[in-house]
């Protein structure tokens, strides 16, 4: 029954997908490269160097790097979009305690959101059975972000937890940057 439900869901989505204006989906990786570079710069601009006192609290979150293996383009694009969405969510929370540069943060979020929108239009069109086969890695990805989310909540969004999260997100973006060059 579960499988049937899943299939119906997929069917519905494919049926209900309205015509999407032709975006330059082929050129998306090239466009992305510049945006990601810019996002990394903004991420650095947001705050100062990683504070020494927070080193003690550093945790290993273990980002599932295999999800970005440049095997099949479509799968990687889906993974990148998922990562962008999570990063976007994390930075939309209450960052007042981090005392970051508000303008840089806004620009970072705005740039990220634009990428999410563009990817969404390109990726959702093509999703079919690819999704099912590589689900395991995507779930690991969700777990990773859940860990960061819980970490922030536990530390009540204090400065160190934010700085650690920012460093972690920076690493994610750098990994994406590397992969996008190969796409």
């Amino acid at each position, binding site marked *: 029954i579960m499988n049937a439900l899943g299939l119906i*869901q997929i069917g519905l989505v494919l049926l209900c997908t309205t015509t999407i204006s032709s975006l330059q989906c082929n050129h998306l990786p090239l466009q992305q490269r510049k945006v990601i570079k810019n996002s990394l710069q903004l991420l650095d601009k947001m705050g100062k160097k990683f504070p020494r006192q927070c080193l003690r609290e550093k945790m290993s979150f273990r980002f599932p790097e295999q999800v970005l293996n440049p095997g099949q383009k479509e799968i990687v694009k889906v993974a990148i979009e998922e990562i962008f969405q999570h990063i976007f969510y994390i930075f939309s929370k209450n960052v007042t305690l981090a005392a970051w540069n508000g303008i840089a943060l806004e620009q970072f979020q705005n740039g990220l959101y634009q990428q999410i929108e563009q990817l969404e239009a390109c990726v959702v069109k093509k999703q079919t059975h690819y999704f099912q086969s590589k689900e395991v890695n*995507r779930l690991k990805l969700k777990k990773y972000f*859940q860990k960061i989310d819980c970490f922030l909540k536990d530390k009540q969004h204090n400065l160190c937890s934010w700085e650690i999260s920012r460093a972690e997100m920076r690493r994610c973006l750098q990994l994406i940057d590397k992969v996008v060059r190969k796409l």
Partner: protein
Amino acid sequence: WKELSGCQKVTRMECDFSSAITEYYDTHHVRIRAERREEVSPWSSIFEMIPYCIAQIGPPEIELQSTNGVIKIKVSPPEAKMWINPLNFKYNLVIWENSSSAEFRSLSIFPTDIIDDLAPDTTYCLKVQATIPLDLKEGLFSPIHCVKTTHKAVNDLVCATNVSIFALNMKFHLHWNNQYKQHVSYNVQYLMGYLKKLYDDYSMKWLNVPRCENITDTQCNFSSIITATSGFYYLRVQTMSEYNKSCLSDEVKVDPLITNEIGPPDVKLDISDVLLHIQISPPGASESDFMRDYYEFSYRILYWKNSSNNEEEIKMKEIKQTIGTVSDLTPSTLYCVKVQAFSELYNKSSHYSKEECIKTPGDKILPLIILATFITALIAVCLVATTLVFALYQAYSKIKYVFFPSCQPPLNIEHFGGQLFSSPYLPTAEELIENCSIIETIITEEVNQIDFKDYKHSKQSSRDSGNYSNDDDTSGSKVSGERVEKEIV
């Protein structure tokens, strides 16, 4: 295997074990067995599941407000610990007129959104579902809400209309119209695109565009707020009339690199003998290299011969660099060029630049003239130099001969005294008398020597090789003969 709380000793055929699930992304195995007093059935087959994958998204909550001929809607995400990222949700609204022959319209909305293009004074019914597109999940629909639209307020006459954007080379201008021109001033406001995605109320987050506050002109330059990679923006015009009445126009969305129009590039032509060089300055290059970085321009060059009969074909060339060359030119012809910049990355192209024309040089006469002139000059210089050197040499040798002679007189007149050779051109009558007597004795001995010489010559003629050794022998004997003569003298 652990006990599943909420499903222990259940009498019905279903149970709720939500509280037992904490890891939403791990695979869980579930098995069940029946118990009756002391008897237990064997375990059922294993049911494998991942909570996140089988979970359905519940219906979202919606709040509606009908004002001014539009419907304002506010959606709250379905509450669940499972959905750690409520920003993942994309909301799908289905709306239809509450009449018999109703058409269903489906559109994607933001958590806080406005549904316009509705007929006034009509009842509409709608329902919303939350979806997670990436996971191909579609949630359950909310219950159907019906609402009646109001009529549009007369106030709208004041509102700015036809809000449109003109953007060239990253200079962005907003233009609008207003029928009601008396006593109005405008405020242009912008909103960062991502704010609409959040659940927070963004109505307070609209900001005034600098230098477009309280203006009376129906246009605004908002380039100052645009940075290319910082995503897209929304713009609107607030019209303020007397009596403090204000009205907000429709919003327009600006995606900088997509909305922007590319201007034509600058072209400079340069001609050498066989090649036409086309130097292209990318559009927007005067301000910054910014456009070039993001658009990654390529250039389309059109060139043709501009002759009296307009039947010359136009040739095309596409290049990625900013310098193009055209070869195979015919001499003494006027060539015209125009260039267009295009970006494959963004599927945009500029207009063609102004035509630039240049004439190819004539035949090979001119270079030949130059060559001839050069060679002539070279020869002339060589001649002059040679003559000069020769004249100098002659002068030098004459001077040397007069003032610094290097020749020695013969040995047999050497002992006439040193004063004789200080001035060889002065007559010396006295010494002549003495010479007479000596010469006589020498002559008699010389006759014998002549014989020797003749003999020597005949010897030479009869032999071809080894002359020198023989000559030495004869000359040796000759010398000794001379010495003998001297002593006699």
